[in-house]
């Protein structure tokens, strides 16, 4: 099997997957949760399945109180409401009004986040992403410092980060689309998922790179392209099996893990698959493309 020979095809596949997400990101942006924007989230658990009429009633009460509602969603007996930040006092009044007019329920969650906290959380998340990426490049550069010529450890680091950025773009793009059409929110769980995917992506990439390093030591760098291709093929079984186990576990979580972590698991699942793809079909081929460029310049 010649993976490196078709490398541009694989790059094109990646681009085709990433572009719709980027377009959506440009058009619709991200559907940020109240953790980042500030606001309140109420969860009401009714005794019976919620009807559309009840939802309308909830809408009416909020508009009477002049509380701007971002979304109201229902799922069987539960209603999830997102609004501008409301105080606990306002919440008390609302709840008694709702109980009187819409029907009896229990308030199972009340969460409110001030805008300052929201901004901070977002900033911290971004900082975390950048710092994690930089540290990973540094670590790979350090750990692969003894890699034989013709390549260099710095290139390994950059290639790993390109794969990582690929996975982050796939995820963020997908969630921009999901956010616009299905109302899926970007919350701190999503950020956690992204950071975990970064860890995984690099994890996968390193396994492939480690093999390249070993083979370069064995056969030298005369035919770099062939060496990289061999290394990918030798680690293919492992990459596939590992990804499959993790994907199976995530499927179990998706099916049985409940609503709260559903989109978190979806993010992990997509990131996992993307991470495996990018280590095999992006990270390693980038090393070859980079080497070709340098060779051409020398001639």
């Amino acid at each position, binding site marked *: 099997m010649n993976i490196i020979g078709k490398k541009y095809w694989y790059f094109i596949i990646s681009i085709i997957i990433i572009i719709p997400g980027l377009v959506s990101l440009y058009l619709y942006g991200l559907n940020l949760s109240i953790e980042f924007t500030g606001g309140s989230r109420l969860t009401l*658990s009714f005794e019976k399945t919620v009807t559309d009429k009840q939802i309308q009633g909830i809408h009416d009460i909020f508009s009477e109180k002049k509380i701007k509602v971002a979304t109201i969603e229902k799922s069987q007996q539960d209603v999830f409401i997102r609004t501008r930040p409301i*105080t*606990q*006092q306002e*919440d*008390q009044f609302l709840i008694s009004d709702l109980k009187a007019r819409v029907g009896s329920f229990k*308030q*199972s*969650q*009340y969460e*409110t*986040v*001030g805008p*300052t*906290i929201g901004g901070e959380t977002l900033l*911290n*998340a971004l*900082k*975390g992403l950048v*710092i*994690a990426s930089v*540290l*990973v490049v540094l*670590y*790979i550069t350090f750990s692969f410092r003894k890699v034989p010529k013709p390549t260099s450890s710095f290139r390994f680091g950059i290639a790993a980060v390109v794969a990582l950025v690929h996975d982050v773009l796939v995820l963020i793009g997908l969630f921009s689309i999901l956010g616009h059409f299905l109302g899926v929110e970007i919350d*701190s*769980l999503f*950020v*956690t998922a992204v950071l*975990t995917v*970064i*860890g*995984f992506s*690099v*994890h996968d990439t*390193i*396994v492939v790179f*480690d093999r390249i*390093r*070993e083979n370069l030591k064995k056969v030298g760098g005369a035919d770099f392209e062939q060496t990289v291709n061999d290394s990918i093929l*030798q680690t293919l*079984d*492992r990459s596939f*099996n*590992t990804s499959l*186990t*993790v994907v*199976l*576990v*995530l499927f*179990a*979580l998706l*099916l*049985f*893990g*409940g609503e709260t*972590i559903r989109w*978190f*698991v979806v993010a*992990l699942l997509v990131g996992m698959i993307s991470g495996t793809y990018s280590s095999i079909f992006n990270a390693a081929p980038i090393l070859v493309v980079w080497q070709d460029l340098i060779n051409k310049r020398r001639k």
Partner: protein
Amino acid sequence: MRKNPRYLLWLIIGLSVLAGFVNLPKIGNFNPNVVFEKLNIPKELTFRKGLDLEGGTSLILEADMSGISKAQKKSALDSAKVVIEKRVNLFGVSEPIVQTSVVNQDFRIIVELPGLTDTEKVRSLIGTTAQLTFWEQEASASAQTASPSAEQVGFKQTNLTGADIKQTSVSFDSNTGKPQVQLQFTSEGTKKFADVTKRNIGKPVAIVLDNQLIEQPTVQQAILTGDAVITGNFTVETANQLSTQLNAGALPVPLKILSSSVIAPTLGTASLEKSLFAGIVGFIIIIIFMCVLYGKLGVIASFALILYTLFNLAIFKLSSLTPYGITLTLSGIAGFILSIGMAVDANILIFERMKEELRAGKSTQTAIELGFSRAWSSIRDSNISTLITSFVLYSFGTGIVRGFALVLAIGVLVSMFSAIVVTRTFLRLVYK
């Protein structure tokens, strides 16, 4: 590195027995905590569950430091924390968390109250309540000065505050039978109170709680004993509440709620049950998958995986003895289930490597040793990079993110131990 696998085997067995023992739940009369009592470890060994699993309230409060000089802000925040801790303890919440945090120029107190979901109660105990002040009439009643509320025009604040109170109690008015709050001032407060009453004989003194006028009695005579009574319009409950609040002390700075979250316990339990079930299903899938893929090797890896799970759970439980207890949250459990998947990866790496070496014509034993030594560099590098990300997650995340990062990091470390030591020892014994 060629140690006798016997010693390692005994080490593994020892650790497993210990971990198994730690993980045992209370069954009937048997309770593993008995041993800890004998060892004089005062705490009970339990999993610490986060608010999202147990239900409860979490609050982020911001202190309004506008009236405090720069040098005293930190100590004002600390004393506010002490007051809140006292109030929370009066409330009988088990294992509350009260922390201070200074972000840029914002002074905050973070409060977590497991099991408490009555927002009304939370607000009354942790809000900006119980700033008791006493006001007297200005010399010229027409002067417009700072006033606690609209009716207080013409009054100025005295130096007597809730901080001068030594003790409070609830009693009943002998005439009307209505509940009232009795105050006993400290010696300092007694002096101040005597001064205030001396100055204002025949004039009203306003008692103000949190900018609300409670009552405005007219002073009949100077009170030198340091006893006072507030006879506002109380019910037994509100009188008790005020008394409790005044006993705990007034907040040195006003606090406002920046963010709060209340989760019903039922929601938490449902989430816990679901994710545990998902974890068990995932675990079984992995074991079947490994056994199908790698046969005998897979069975060995599955044993290692069971031990991995035991060790991890034991660490979670034992951590509750240290100040750095691991709080299990929903995302933490997801992280743990995920780390099971990652723990398998090390085994897969090694087994694939062994297969290659076997194909190259090496003997089984050589293949085992080569499989481990050659797979080691990728296991090390990939796990270190995961540790780096979990470290970053931990330092920048809050709450749930931290729980996840910590669990992931511990999972990675334990998985390296289970792959390198446990699986290898088993293999060496089986293929001797």
